[in-house]
């Protein structure tokens, strides 16, 4: 009886309110489809696009005094001359072959006119001065004019890019390098962050709030900056270079050290949350059972924090394996996956291979993301269980050890930043230690100058304002709007996806999707808009989850009450939901701002000369050997983010005190 299928499910009549809500969720969901699914899909197709020169289809005919000679295909010529197609390099979309390079100069003796016939279909393969002559047409000109004639490769679909990738040892090596470095960093960061978080939550060390703040500082700078700091500290003229005992900082050591710096705050945040969940009663039970502190740690503390540890490990792994700033600056000749994408695209213009590397990088990122989500969900389930909070007790040896660990870590973090600041302020570290602002004269360097800095601020502001509004609206609809049916589930799924996509992959997929002249959205390519869009999408998930958490804390019947009172949902959204969630909305805004200031990976593919960004300028200045100005720019981002955080704190405080109902 109970499992009988519905004979005919009733369908509700739809109110105008429902239409508005549906329209809005459609807008937000379409945004994610257009800025995430479509680009990724384009990238997947490009990764299976294979190019080759089909030179049988092009024929050449010479006119001499004796009239037109016999036609010969270009392929014929190649076989006759032994010319190496595309100079032996793998053919990509942008490769071009020239007839002049194939047919030896001597053959043009006595030739008055050359006729090139394109026997392919459609747009054709032959271009003259950048214009297609069209399939089936021919071109005539003097041998000198032949300079302007280029042959395009034809594209087909196949797995050749992948077989090429995996058959190339240097490329394959990057997979090994990436995993080794990411695993190594995870192995160092997780225990370190655990000790640090343990000290903050479970011990009686002094200066806890200072340590807490210091641990979060690395979030405020791009990952390029610790690498630059390490170059100064441990590079050829570094003050600490002897500590490396002959090893070079350029390579795995440098990458791991800089990675430890920039992922540390993320791991500490996750583990502090996990360790805050301790249940006093378990510890009392352990005490009653006479368990040693060491045994208690292994049997109570660690198991209780297990989901936090899993989550921290996978987040660390993902952040490191997808980061390209650190290996770019300090990698030496060690290649990693993220860097390969950059090199294939920016260096060799081989977009297809870039897409293949992206797919290879996407795989571990998606796996790590999935594991992290599951762990986080379990963790949240534990959070809701009723526990008695733990009050830490003093323990001399333990507290002293932890104080040493925390202090060393704090010195490491602050030391790197201080080094960058010194390097930026001296004439020429370490040779000329006189004070100078020369390194702040960004306009004299390549990379975009001060304009890049102001662009960054504009970009971060737009991202914070537009992104927060859109993401909060999306989260509101998912959580609160009634009667959305399947579109709610779809939107919920879409909102989680961006976190699984590495920045480099997102950026490259944007090139494919938005730089396509047949795409009407092509107009935003090279503008500020595409930088804002990519950044919003890149950081969508965490912001969405913050909004969802805030919304879940509100009474779930507000919308029902408002409907029963015949009020449109947007009135309740404006009058109640937004004011109540304002502190969380501000949190989302500062998160978006800070990340927009520091991000490099997606935007590095998308900026144009007049939309260069501060973080990209660091990269370019470092590339050009202007390391001190790069450090100076990095510190500018740092101070800007500090200012933004202070502004955020002040605003939050003002909001709390202006909202009388928050006071009891």
């Amino acid at each position, binding site marked *: 009886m109970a499992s009988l299928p519905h004979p005919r499910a009733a369908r509700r009549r739809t109110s105008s309110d429902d239409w508005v809500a549906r329209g809005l969720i459609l807008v937000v969901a379409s945004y994610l489809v257009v800025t995430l699914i479509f680009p990724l899909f384009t990238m997947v197709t490009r990764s299976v696009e294979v190019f080759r020169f089909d030179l049988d289809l092009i024929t050449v005919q010479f006119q001499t005094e004796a009239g037109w000679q016999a036609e010969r295909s270009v392929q014929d010529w190649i076989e006759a001359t032994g010319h190496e197609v595309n100079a032996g390099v793998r053919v990509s979309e942008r490769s071009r072959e020239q007839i002049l390079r194939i047919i030896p100069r001597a053959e043009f003796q006595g030739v008055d006119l050359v006729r090139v016939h394109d026997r392919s279909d459609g747009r054709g393969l032959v271009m003259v001065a950048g214009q297609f002559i069209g399939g089936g047409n021919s071109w005539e000109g003097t041998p000198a004019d032949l300079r302007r004639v280029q042959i395009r490769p034809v594209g087909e679909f196949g797995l050749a890019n992948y077989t090429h990738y995996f058959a190339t040892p240097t490329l394959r090596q990057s997979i090994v390098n990436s995993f080794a470095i990411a695993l190594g960093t995870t192995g160092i960061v997780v225990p370190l962050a655990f000790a640090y978080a343990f000290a903050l939550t479970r011990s009686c060390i002094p200066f806890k709030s200072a340590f807490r703040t210091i641990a979060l500082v690395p979030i405020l700078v791009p990952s390029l900056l610790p690498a630059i700091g390490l170059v100064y500290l441990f590079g050829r003229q570094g003050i600490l270079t002897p500590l490396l005992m002959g090893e070079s900082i350029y390579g795995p050591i440098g990458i791991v050290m800089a990675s430890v710096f920039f992922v540390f705050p993320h791991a500490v945040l996750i583990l502090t949350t996990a360790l805050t969940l301790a249940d006093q009663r378990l510890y009392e039970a352990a005490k009653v059972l006479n368990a040693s502190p060491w045994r208690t740690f292994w049997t109570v503390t660690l198991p209780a924090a297990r989901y936090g540890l899993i989550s921290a490990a996978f987040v660390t792994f993902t952040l490191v394996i997808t980061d390209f700033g650190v290996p770019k600056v300090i990698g030496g000749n060690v290649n990693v996956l993220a860097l390969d994408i950059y090199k294939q695209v920016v260096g060799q213009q081989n977009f297809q291979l870039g897409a293949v590397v992206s797919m290879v990088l996407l795989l571990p990122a998606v796996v790590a993301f999935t594991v992290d989500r599951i762990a986080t969900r379990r963790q949240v389930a534990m959070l809701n269980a009723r526990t008695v909070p733990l009050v830490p007790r003093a323990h001399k040896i333990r507290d002293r050890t932890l104080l040493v660990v925390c202090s060393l870590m704090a010195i490491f973090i602050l030391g790197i930043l201080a080094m960058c600041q010194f390097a930026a302020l001296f004439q020429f570290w370490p040779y000329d230690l006189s004070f100078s602002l020369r390194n702040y004269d960004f306009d004299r360097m390549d990379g975009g100058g001060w304009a890049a800095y102001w662009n960054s601020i504009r970009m971060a502001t737009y991202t914070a304002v537009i992104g927060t509004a859109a993401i909060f609206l999306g989260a509101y609809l998912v959580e609160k709007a009634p*009667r959305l049916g399947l579109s709610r589930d779809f939107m919920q799924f879409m909102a989680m996806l961006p976190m699984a996509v590495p920045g480099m992959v997102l950026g490259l997929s944007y090139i494919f999707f938005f730089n396509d002249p047949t795409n009407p959205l092509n107009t935003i390519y090279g503008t500020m808009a595409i930088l804002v869009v990519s950044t919003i999408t890149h950081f969508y998930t965490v912001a969405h989850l913050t909004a969802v958490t805030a919304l879940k804390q509100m009474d779930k019947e507000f919308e*029902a009450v408002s409907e029963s009172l015949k009020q449109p949902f947007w*009135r309740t959204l404006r009058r109640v939901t937004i004011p109540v969630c304002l502190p969380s909305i501000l949190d989302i805004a500062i998160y978006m701002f800070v990340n927009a200031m520091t991000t490099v990976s997606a935007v590095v593919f998308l900026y144009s000369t007049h939309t260069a960004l501060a973080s990209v300028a660091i990269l370019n200045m470092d590339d050009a050997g202007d390391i001190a100005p790069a450090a100076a720019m990095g510190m500018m981002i740092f101070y800007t983010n500090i200012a933004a955080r202070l502004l955020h704190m002040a605003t939050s405080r003002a909001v709390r005190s202006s909202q009388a109902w928050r006071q009891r």
Partner: protein
Amino acid sequence: MDAVAAELAEPYLVIDQVTKRFGPFVALDRVSLAVRDGEFVCFLGPSGCGKTTLLRAIAGLELQSEGAIRQKGQDISLLPPSARDFGIVFQSYALFPNLTVADNVGYGLVGRGLRRGAIQARIDELLRLVGLPDQGPKYPAQLSGGQQQRVALARALATSPGLLLLDEPLSALDAKVRQRLRLEMKDLQRRLGVTTIMVTHDQDEALTMADRIVVMNEGVIEQIGTPEEVYTRPATAFVADFIGEMNFLDGALTDAAAVRVGNLTLALPAPVASGPEVTIGIRPEDVRIDDAHGIEAQVHHVEFLGAHVRVSLDHEAFGPRGLVADLAQNLYRARGGVAVGERLRLGLPPERLLVYGRS
């Protein structure tokens, strides 16, 4: 003419064969019910029996899988909540924390073409009505639970809805406040004459407040009746068990007017048509003690309950559960108490016996 008469005759709210499924789970199974204009109806039942689901279906917050709902003769089954005529109070009250009490109460008055002054006057009137005349400028968090409940009630009544829906409106309050508010709410409802449906799992609440009680269990209605009816003539063994205290004895019909329980034969008030296997029910207060022709049973336990004394009695026919009898305090005193181990003669008056078929 006839159509108009029929319409006038139709009850205010009609729920017709409403079924609600959540996936394979049936939360409401062909529920039918009619509520008269101005009536106070309580949905009563154990947790998870579907009370809230039915209330939300009436409000349009949950769409029934099958069946129809008519209000004032109009089919509202498929209307969204905003197109239905009702006010609602939730268990959590769902007061907007950032709005003052006055703004909460006046929330539904905006957008109805009312002047500012008229809105303010209406808010004042409502706050007076619920006994909170001076609390307008405060925020909900500054009020006690009982006051918050009354603000939620005022907000639901502000737009003068024809139907008031209350989902466990008193369950978040402590016992004293709850008892006082029961009376206040019932009084208010009677004065306003608003048709009201209240969900509760507290039988005392239902018995004191409702004109009629709808007893629900596992998605079906077990009985609809006045408090007196459901108490004195529970239609099913479930209702008999759920409301008040009840002794159950297993027996078998010997003929239509007598039943055999162990070695006892009990007379029945009226002939019963049912299988031979039956369950006999009798309320503890209906068990007569010191009945000259009664059954002899031994006192096993005596419990002092304030207004009366509960005596547990053993007899081989009563089975392991025994039988409890409630003795009014004055009777108890008059007979000089009851001692454990004492043998009493019990009367089970036929007119008080309830008979339920057993399958």
